[in-house]
């Protein structure tokens, strides 16, 4: 069904009509009884609103030309010239310089490229400069930060020098202030920019990471579902950085092990005896699981001496494993190769004789004498596999209260019922007769009756007459031959009008008054009523020859 059909509108209606149609349909339905219908309706409305939003925009007049804020595709790494009073066309952008303009110390003369472009790069707004400040910044803070982290000359990922670090902190502070004081969209865009730049420039950005994480709230969202990959990466690195800092405090549980492993040289025998190796292994496991990059901080030789404490004397022992391998090789040449152990599924092709015999017995019991497992496989392989799977579960002890025949019979009954529904006609009548036989056999047990009507579950130990079983076998065999016993698919609620004479027969058989009868027919009465009515209705309809025959049977 198309979106417009679900809403009942002509395609291309406007948003108001879509909403009204949705409102009317929502009020008419019971949302809890039909969650799928509600989901369809809601999706249809959202899709229709989206389509309605796009179409009129194209049809309307062209929007007036508003220059969008320019986002430079290449970050202005070329930098700006150092300004002093009276120079360049950028004077117009900055307030009046008072006296000689002192650049930020130390004076960083970035390489002068073409004329600098001072556009209003979204989301960074120009900083407001206080006129009484003695020092005027000559570069935008985000530009400077980018240059410090990812600019030319930083490819080797050296750490900051002291002055660079101070500058970077100041620039970051100003960027974070813009974010904190800006609107939601600005904050979002700045956060993404910072995450991206930091992720690309790690580990050079390590000193700045903690401050940014605190201000932007990354540690709140650590480990959450909606985390962006850059933030996840940075959170992990930050955790490692903090661990490295915290483990140097004597009170940290891993402190002793860390100090031990960061010493130079190798651990001697005495050391290994006096220092509990459990602490070492705990620390190594913790690092390897959470912060693998920290293992570079430990001294390799010492770690190896802890893990492989053999002395020099072991070096000659490779003879022993070599000898063992040689012997095994010789042995394998002498003995015939064992077949590689492959997995033997306990499925239809299993070698186990008991299983095959069981399977054959079940097939004969279900489809009648003369039908074999091979016959079933030829016509409906998937059904054979299902039966085999259920038998293997039963062999494991599940559902021990039922016999295998009962389990398989239940499966086939449900599938046969659905296949008959699709087929209609005489087959539907036969399937309904069997259903009626089961309902009669269940008798007055309303709980079982209700379960059978709703889910098709039959209590263990149900006895049906031989004639019924023979008819069921014939029907099942016929359906398998045509390959129609597919797994059941659900169908939506159906309704049909019941002619008066059938209603009279049902009332006579069940002995219910009009109200309860009507409620039970609409699936609203007590389970006992519904069961009785269902039984009587099937019986009455099977004898009816009118045109509602099929429709009524399909609702039961």
């Amino acid at each position, binding site marked *: 069904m198309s979106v417009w059909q679900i809403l009942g509108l002509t395609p291309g209606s406007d948003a108001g009509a879509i*909403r*009204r149609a*949705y*409102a*009317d349909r*929502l*009020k008419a339905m019971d*949302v*809890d009884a039909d*969650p*799928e219908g*509600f*989901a369809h309706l*809601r999706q249809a409305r959202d899709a229709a609103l989206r389509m309605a939003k796009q179409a009129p925009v194209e049809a309307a007049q062209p929007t007036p030309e508003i220059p969008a804020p320019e986002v430079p595709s290449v970050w202005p790494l070329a930098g700006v010239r150092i300004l002093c009073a009276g120079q360049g066309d950028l004077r117009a952008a900055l307030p009046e310089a008072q006296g000689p303009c002192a650049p930020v110390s130390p004076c960083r003369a970035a390489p002068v490229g073409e004329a600098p472009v001072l556009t209003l790069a979204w989301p960074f707004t120009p900083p407001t400069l206080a006129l009484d400040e003695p020092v005027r910044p000559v570069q935008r803070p985000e530009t400077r930060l980018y240059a410090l982290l990812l600019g030319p000359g930083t490819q080797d990922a050296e750490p900051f020098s002291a002055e660079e670090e101070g500058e970077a902190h100041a620039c970051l502070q100003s960027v974070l202030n813009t974010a*904190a*004081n*800006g*609107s*939601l*969209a600005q*904050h*979002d865009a700045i956060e993404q920019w910072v995450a991206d730049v930091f992720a690309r420039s790690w580990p050079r950005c390590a000193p700045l990471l903690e401050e940014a994480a605190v*201000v932007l*709230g990354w540690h*709140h*969202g650590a*480990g*959450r*579902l*909606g*985390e962006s990959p850059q933030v996840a990466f940075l959170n992990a690195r930050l955790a490692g950085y903090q661990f490295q800092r915290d483990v140097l405090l004597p009170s940290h549980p891993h402190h002793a092990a860390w100090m031990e492993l960061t010493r130079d040289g190798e651990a001697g025998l005495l050391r290994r005896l006096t220092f509990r190796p459990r602490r070492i292994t705990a620390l190594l496991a913790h690092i390897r699981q959470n912060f693998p990059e920290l293992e570079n901080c430990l001294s390799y030789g010492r770690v190896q001496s802890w893990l492989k404490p053999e002395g020099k004397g072991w070096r000659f022992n490779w003879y022993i494993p070599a000898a063992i391998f040689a012997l095994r090789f010789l042995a394998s040449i002498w003995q015939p190769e064992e077949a590689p152990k492959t*997995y033997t*599924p*306990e*499925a239809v092709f299993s070698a186990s004789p008991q299983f095959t015999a069981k399977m054959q017995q079940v097939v004969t019991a279900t489809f009648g004498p003369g039908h074999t497992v091979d016959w079933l496989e030829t016509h409906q392989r998937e059904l054979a*596999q*299902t039966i*085999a*799977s*259920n038998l*293997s*579960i039963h062999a*494991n002890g*599940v559902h021990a209260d039922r016999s295998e025949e009962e389990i398989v019979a239940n*499966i086939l009954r*449900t599938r046969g019922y659905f296949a008959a529904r699709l087929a209609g006609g005489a087959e539907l009548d036969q399937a309904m007769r069997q259903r009626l036989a089961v309902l009669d056999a269940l008798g007055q047990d309303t709980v079982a009756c209700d379960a059978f009507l709703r889910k098709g579950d039959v209590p263990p130990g149900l006895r049906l007459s031989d004639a019924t079983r023979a008819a069921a076998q014939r029907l099942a065999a016929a359906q398998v031959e045509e390959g129609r016993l597919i*797994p059941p698919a659900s169908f939506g609620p159906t309704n049909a009008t019941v002619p008066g004479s059938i209603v009279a027969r049902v009332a006579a058989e069940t002995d219910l008054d009009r109200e309860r009868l009507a409620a039970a027919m609409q699936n609203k009465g007590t389970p006992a009523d519904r069961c009785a009515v269902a039984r009587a209705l099937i019986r009455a309809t099977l004898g009816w020859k009118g045109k509602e025959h099929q429709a009524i049977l399909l609702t039961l």
Partner: protein
Amino acid sequence: MLIGIDLGTTNSAVAIWRDGVAQLVPNALGEMLTPSAVHIGRDGAVSIGAAALDRLASDPGNTATSFKRLMGTQRTTTLGGRAYGAEDLSALVLRSLRDDVAAFAGEAPTEAVITVPAYFNDRQRKATRRAGELAGLTVRRLINEPTAAALAFGLQDKGDREPFLVFDLGGGTFDVSIVEMFSGIVEVRASAGDNRLGGDDFNAVLAALAQPRADPTGVLASLPADRREAVLMRAAEKARRGLTLAPEARFAFTLGEQTYGTTITETEFEQAAEDLLRRLRDPVVRSLRDCGMDPAELSEIVLVGGGTRMPVVRRAITRMFGRFPNSTVHPDHAVALGAAVQAGLLARDAALDEVRITDVCPFTLGIDVAERDAYGRVQQGLFSPIIDRNTPVPVSRVRRYHTMSDNQKQIEMGVYQGEARLVADNIRLGEVSIPVPARPAGEVSVEVRFSYDSSGLLEVDIAVPDTGLTRNLVIVDEEDRPDPREIARRREALARLKFHPREDAENVALMARAGRMYEDHIGPARAVIGHWITEFAGALETQDPRHITDARQALIARLEEIDGQTIL
């Protein structure tokens, strides 16, 4: 009769739907708001509301406030020598609200709609239901606070509304909801929040800022911890309210014969509360992202909850959205009125025939899975979402999973609720297992269907297509309801407490208030107040109603001269 109750961290209110309109019900003192505070004396005498709040000054060890924060946990508070859980204390407050309705409407209500923060998890919601039961009320529905506020706001003029955002900053919780209304359908598009952010946190920040300045010698350290907390929090609350009205406020408390105080300016407070204001942003961003909206598309920002009166919060909101918020709806009353509207809807009142509410589920629901990573290692305990947060409810989703090892006998899965990637950080709702046929790893698949309906019922259906076997698990909101004897026992324990009769409520409250003012003042003022208290107590003993009423009016007038406001 169905009533709507707003059970808040700081204040509670109750409203009913009558004559086609929602009305608030006044309590015994004539106020619409009842503070969520309980005091139980050694003799078992219980005070609830303003009287208990005033006793916070004189007897903080036996007074409990902000116990909504403890809902869903097993922590108990000791009052009057016995331990009470958060549910019991909430039940006492609900009980007093129920009595107020009985006095107002003439009949005692038996059913209620109670509001909970939209971001309350499963355990906290169950605890709220149990509190209602302990108070003798059947809880028909738990409605989210921002949805209730949206109802109260949106049904004012019964028109259509473009999507608006409800910003609910209460005493202990913060919730954000984006709601749209058209043709009588109230549709919640997204919900988010923070359960640990509210007016109380701002109080803590203010106290941390002011304490070193007001008490440089550290006199407070000599007090027991709960007394110190109570003193600091009261002073911080008063100072914070003062900052709402003026750019400077006094943070002061009295200990013994000495008053300690300092002045706080608004800029200092804003700097100190910077972290909290930053945290206000996250739920807003999350809810906007989940429904795919731009902040510019919102038509209004509706402010609900006492915390939104703070100028620092209003400035932060204005900066966030670039426009002024809408404060036409009364921030303290909106939620209770909305709950009354929902009560009217449940009672199928004819005036509300054309109104329908569709809500969303605020948490992600899923199961725990194990995955093989690129090195072939198996990572266990990962969370696989099946129903994402902020999908419209009722919803039903299916996902397929496979077995991890050869010849696996059964698949066991735990059902979890939360946002974290590892299930250890999420809330476990239940578990279900199903046997599978013996096959190589990965060949057996299982389909898991989660169905979540509008009353909070989660149904899990697992099916193994290979065998046709299905299993079903229903996780009801009151799944681990303690057996009825337990509930009856707890209700009896509460009933054994001594409650003041309703007629005495005003006198009790007045005595408590006078006691608080006695604590707050020093020197000659304190002596005079003590004298007045003795006079009033003497008037109460005469048991002559007219005499008592006159004495009460006189005392109220005198107290108001000295100190104009109550803590409310």
